[in-house]
């Protein structure tokens, strides 16, 4: 079954659905069957449409070009339609949303996947910078400690500000006998 939503897609530039448009549809479908199915010469006459409604939706079947009473298997029709979906869509200036084919999910475009995920590249940059920073700081620490040992005594005094020693004296009084 096919559902056309022309107005929603095109708005002002919508065309009117008429017999000619239906002819175009049958022709594109015949094209699809010719190219993507078994290669037989399908004609417009092989695409039979029924139950057309003003909504612009209808059912269709495809008959074999060899024998008009033989219906082509649904799955082969579906496959042909799926493969030529973009051609059919563009013939009617519509998209997968506005030209709905009930039962055939559209084959979506696979997104371009880069070889290395971008986040891994950013990660490399960040880790490189951080690693370099750590190494620089550690090396300068070692150098600084080296200088201090060979240079004067280490700073061991308390700060120059007055420090009131607040340690709570827990020692036993010495004069207990």
């Amino acid at each position, binding site marked *: 079954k096919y559902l056309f939503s022309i107005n929603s897609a095109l708005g002002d530039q919508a065309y009117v659905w008429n017999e000619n448009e239906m002819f175009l549809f049958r022709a594109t479908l015949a094209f699809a069957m010719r190219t993507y199915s078994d290669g037989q010469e399908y004609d417009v006459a092989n695409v039979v449409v029924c139950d057309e409604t003003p909504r612009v939706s209808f059912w269709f079947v495809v008959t074999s070009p060899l024998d008009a009473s033989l219906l082509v298997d649904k799955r082969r029709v579906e496959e042909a339609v799926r493969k030529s979906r973009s051609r059919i869509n563009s013939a009617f200036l519509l998209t997968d949303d506005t030209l709905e084919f009930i039962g055939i999910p559209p084959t979506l475009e696979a*997104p371009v996947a880069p070889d290395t995920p971008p986040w891994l590249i950013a990660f490399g940059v960040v880790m490189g910078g951080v*690693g370099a920073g750590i190494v620089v*700081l550690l090396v300068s620490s070692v150098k600084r400690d080296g200088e201090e040992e060979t240079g004067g005594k*280490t*700073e061991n005094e308390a700060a120059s500000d007055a420090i009131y020693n607040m340690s709570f004296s*827990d020692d*036993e009084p010495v004069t207990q006998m």
Partner: protein
Amino acid sequence: RQRDQSPLKWGSKTQYLLTCVGFCVGLGNVWRFPYLCQSHGGGAFMIPFIILLVFEGVPLLYLEFAIGQRLRSGSVGVWSSIHPYMTGVGIASMTVSFFVGMYYNTILAWVMWYFLNSFQSPLPWSQCPLNDNLTDLVSECKRSSPVDYFWYRETLNTSTSIEESGGLQWWMVLCLAAAWSVLYLCCIRGIETTGKVVYITSTLPYVVLTIFLIRGLTLKGSVEGIKFLFTPDLNELLNPSTWLDAGAQVFYSFSLGVGGLISFSSYNPVHNNCEQDAIIIAIINGFTSIFAATVIYTIIGFRATKQFDDCLNEYVNILMLLNAFDLVEGTVTEINYDEMLQNLNSTISGSEVIQGLDLSTCNLRTFLSDGVEGTGLAFIVFTEAITKMPISPLWSVLFFVMLFCLGLSTMFGAIEGVVVAIQDFKIFPTWPKEVISGIVCLSSFLIALIFSLGSGNYWLALFDSYAGSIPLLIIAFCEMVGVAYVYGIERFNKDIEFMIGHKPNIFWQAMWRVISPLIVLVIFLIYFVNEVSSTLTYITWNPSSENFPVLEILPYPNWVYIIILLLAGLPSLAIPGFALYKVLQKCCCKKTIKKLELNTVSANVNMYDTK
């Protein structure tokens, strides 16, 4: 006890203030306060918040600054100076710092992951990936949303419950390593290095928030968001949970009890005006919360309005109606949608069809109050809003850099709390600070690998709920009681007079002696009773559950209760535990000391006799 290493001090007063601001202002200001504000009556929430800021936050802050500056030591040194039996408080602070630091830095690892993924257009969480045979979007993503999928599947790869570990997720391990490496780089020499880094990490968030505010105000719907946030509902003031949440928010927002503030103040010159500092930091912290809330809600308002407009557009609904009833295009439009829906619904067969259609309803308020706190706010709601803004990668990078800075500056205090405690205990007396910091960072990283499992975020939620909450309240209560009654409030007043030239006035006396400890005690009791009386549950992401994508609520398995007891109990019990240890030590050593003294005296007597 004084430190034997060369005395560290601040490069400048600005460094000290920036470090304290950075420590206090953290992720909670951005993703907890706005939610509390909005859910507890908007503008009305300011009232309990400011009241508790004044009666609970500032006194505690002043207390920690003062004892650190006076006793010139980290938390362990300070408490053993006040009374040796109270050293346990310092140990508790150190343990809590360690646990909190572990899980807090994991959040930074998540922020790092999102930051690293922001350097591509379109952003990876803006669309669903395709399934294997390229016929449709991945089912889990289609049923929820691209941002949900990116967070739960591509970031966390979350399992369905805490019992399923799911194995280490290698990309998370890398991000965790990156986060701990950045932290180590900044903390490598303690305040020497962090003092310089805070010029960036403490100021950048404000710059970014301002940029987002300006950007946000130009977007449609931002004013709706601000109105929603601040519209006061004074009835909420009658709700006790409003006051409880405000008190808890003030308390945790100031990062009290972890020992970082005490340690930072100990590097100050002894006559520094800590009273002024406490007031300044409190004001800045409060202001930042309100400012951040405003910014967040301009963006949330924008997002909600966009969702509402899309919903109202009813394009999908109209199409569904047309298809279901095979109507000609144009019979149902946005204008007559409601009418037509009613007409079609009035027939029995029509209403049956309509029920089966699952048409969506639109309500701006539901979009505005959409689960917006914690990681959900940052990694789901806000990221979605960003994808709808032009030049999304730029805003994404800015946002996550801001979050990283906010969290990193808080981590400085946590690491300081642990490293300084280790130094005070003289566990490794000769080892330089670089090595101790390295050991702390490495061991935290290794234990934190648990958060990179498939069940990692459930573990993190566990730590978040229990490792910080209860022990910190106990520590803060003991701090106030310890200073006011064990050390003696008179002695403390004299110390402050010595430092800043005047005794603290009656307001501070009342706060320290009675009001603030009482507030903390009340919060603790209510919280404790709540937790103990209810079965503890957690929320999980389960694609095969019935209500997917609504998160499933599961009860914790029994063995988790043991872990909770350890997390909350170990630090809390360290306080009485260490006191007990000291008592036992005294009893056992009494006899040996006496013997030595006797020997010395008799030796002296003998000496004099033989003369």
